[in-house]
């Protein structure tokens, strides 16, 4: 059964005529075309589908779209501002923290929420913060380096 769904994504309001049982991941990818949000397992076990809801990281594959109406949703496409990359995006690129890139959007958004709350984290805290995001390519070394580097020089 289709209904109108109202979502606020990346600073814009969307009205979507779609099924009410859809997950946020499905609506973002299929109805809105925000394919930067990745489907890695559909079970909440890999973190690739992580988006920010009111600044907190959520697994969009386990979140019903209807439940997050009226909230501020940010996907990887909404992180760069006015053509300027977010410092985390810059750090991931420059430190070689991206290989295949499939975990990257979820990883960066998880890291963003984490750094917003813990601007000067330890390595151990950082590892714990991203432990719900699986990466099979990098061994996490450069990802942790990238996250730690963001506020290092400030």
């Amino acid at each position, binding site marked *: 059964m289709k209904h109108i769904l109202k979502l606020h994504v990346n600073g814009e309001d969307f009205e979507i005529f779609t099924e009410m049982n859809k997950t946020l991941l499905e609506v973002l*990818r299929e109805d809105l075309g*925000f*394919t*930067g*949000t*990745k*489907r*890695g*397992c*559909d*079970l909440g*076990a*890999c973190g*690739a589908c992580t988006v920010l809801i009111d600044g907190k990281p959520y697994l969009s594959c386990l979140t019903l779209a209807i439940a997050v109406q009226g909230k501020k949703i940010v*996907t*990887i*496409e909404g*992180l*760069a501002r006015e053509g300027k*990359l977010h410092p985390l*995006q810059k750090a*991931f*690129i*420059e430190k*070689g923290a*991206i*290989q*295949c*890139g*499939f*975990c*990257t*959007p979820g990883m*960066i958004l998880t890291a963003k929420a984490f750094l917003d709350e813990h601007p000067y984290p330890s390595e151990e805290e*950082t*590892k*714990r913060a*991203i*432990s*719900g*995001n*699986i*990466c*099979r*390519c*990098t*061994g*996490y*070394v*450069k*990802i*942790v380096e990238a996250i730690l580097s963001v506020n290092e020089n400030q």
Partner: protein
Amino acid sequence: MDKLNVVGKREVMLDAWEKATGQARFTDDLSFPGMLFGKILRSPYAHAKILQVDLTQALNVPGVKDAITGRDIPKKMYGIVPMAKDEYALAIEKVRYIGDEVAAVVATSVEAAEEAILKIRVDYEELPAVFDPFEAMRPGAPILHSNVPNNVSASIRKEFGNVARAFSESDVVYEDTFETQPVNHSPLEPQAALAIVDLSGKVTLWSSTQIPFFLRRNLATTLDIPESKVRVIKPKVGGGFGQKIDLYAKDFCAAFFAMRTGKPVKFVYEREEVFTSTRQRHPMHIQLKTGMKKDGTLLAQQFKVVADGGAYNSTAPLMITLACYFIMLPYRLENLLFEGYHVYTNKPVGGAMRGHGIPQVRFAVETQLDMIAEKMGIDPLELRLKNAFLAGEPHPGKLLVQSCGFSDTLVKAAEGIEWKEKRGKLPFGRGVGLAGASFPSGVSNMSHISSGAIVKIERDGAVTLLTGAADIGQGAETVISQIVAEELGVTLEDIRITAADTEITPLDPGTFGSGVTLRAGNAAKMAALAAKEKLFEAVAEKMEVHSKDLEAKNRRIYMKDQPEKGMSLIEAIKIYQYSDRPMPIIGRGSYLPPAKEPTTLLKEDGNFSPAYSFMTQAAEVEVDTQTGKIKVLKMVASHDCGRAINPMLVEGQLEGSVVGGMGQALYEDVITDKGEVVNPSFLDYGIPTAMEVPSIVSIEVETNDPEGPFGAKESGEGTQLAPAPAIVNAIYDAIGVRFKTLPVTPEKVLEALWKK
């Protein structure tokens, strides 16, 4: 060595920004209007005859557009190794493992396709199944494929030197048995395919593939249409590690349904399907006997290896052959008797995975070397150094090793882990260990695996590079672009690359066997040189000098010995244009390794690869004797990669590979119960997370290989050969317990400590 401007630099991966911003498009990110979504019905039985499949009710589900069974497809067998073809895209007569493909549907939505799958009625006649390779080899065991009556679908028995004599001349002989587990590659991107068909009947397939040109061939074969009617395009691929080498039902079905319906069709595997129905690292049972002189000289080894292949061959003959030949590297070993069997069982299918048959035997050898070292009172590092292979030495299997930094990797890894200070000297519960290995840099056989490249110098000085190489996240496009930029004397920003589209880019075998940098890199370097020579000819004419005296660097072309005499690249291009030479300026390159006696090794000895890399992994671990949990504190990966074209990407390869190897050592295991995978999810499987990752030190040992582009060889795949034995050797140093089966779980540790 010449001063290099682009090669050897820590350049950022060209497409990193796309991946960091969500712009990068993977197969599942693509869509077309009117696209249909497919699902596959998989066998619930480990072994059964398919008596009848009734699609009627499935076709009646609203939104369903088409459905097929194995009986609807061309009877064309598929196999990634041509001599070992043994499967159809969908099973026809019978199913051979739980997860085998039985039927497929397409619908206007995924939900409709899922519903339809549930409504397909299949009558099976269950057959006796076999889950253990040793049982499968016994007379009277259930037979999976009627043409393989003993279930041994690939085997090798090779003797090098005189093994019996060497054992009799040995002062000590040791014999041990080792076992390794099935490991799933677990690329983060599940397998996907999307096909469209145009009015001429040409199929275009976007696929999460490592090998677009092989996929084109295999797709044409299974669809029973000419190769020219198939175009394969590789979009971004979310990791592969060998799992995306094979054609899968999703590729075939997307194309076949697109042909039948005229609509775009997409198939995306669920994570569970990736675990149950793609490929995994072969579990192996390894009996190893080693003979040695008192002074530690390695004299002879004898292997009996039984690889559990699961229900189909995939790369079976090659896998078991590689396991054999790479015993004789990185140590000097003149006498080897290797018996290896690839055995069918009613279980998930084995295939190429990072190291391809070698990590398993390396685990056995490197673990046993430590055991022998201890019994003989020799330092394990010294034992390895004593037997380390050197460049130019004769290899019993005729591999031609032109560069070899193995001893250096041993020494540097030992320094990195503080071997002298720590080995045998740490408190109970902590220890260090190391292990070595060697790996090919691509395969140098058969002309169809030559690699091509085209380089165009545009009017504004930009460079267009076409390569067939398949970047699956390792950074191949960046590395190849760096090579071209260096050769042409331009910057990396000047290069625009188009890769891995079978209709646009030249032939390339794809990403397997760690050959991309060497093979596609050489092809691109040749193409760049050819374009540069054309330009030099025009410039030389204008300057009235010899073109061999010219050099290109920093977007300038100038006299080698008088750098001030020259001109900018743009001026050179103008001169070329006004000299009435044919435009555009195009250089072509095609690289086929010039190996003497090239071979697949399947039938005869010879030089398998144009170059060989060498590596040592060292580990420091801490064992919690209360819980049995093992924490890897530090890993040192020292790697002879010839020359690192991009040290940052090499480090990334080493780090990722080490952590994967740690997963095999401690956590990962595809557990089956009567053929059914009981842990087909990331929740239950055990991929290392950031929490488990130790501090990792990557050390690049540069040897400058004569065959590699700018001296480059393999990196990253060979790295996964030795972490497991290094960790297991460190565990022994920590608690005095020797583990011969993987993974070393806390249960095993506690049980062993309790027995001790």
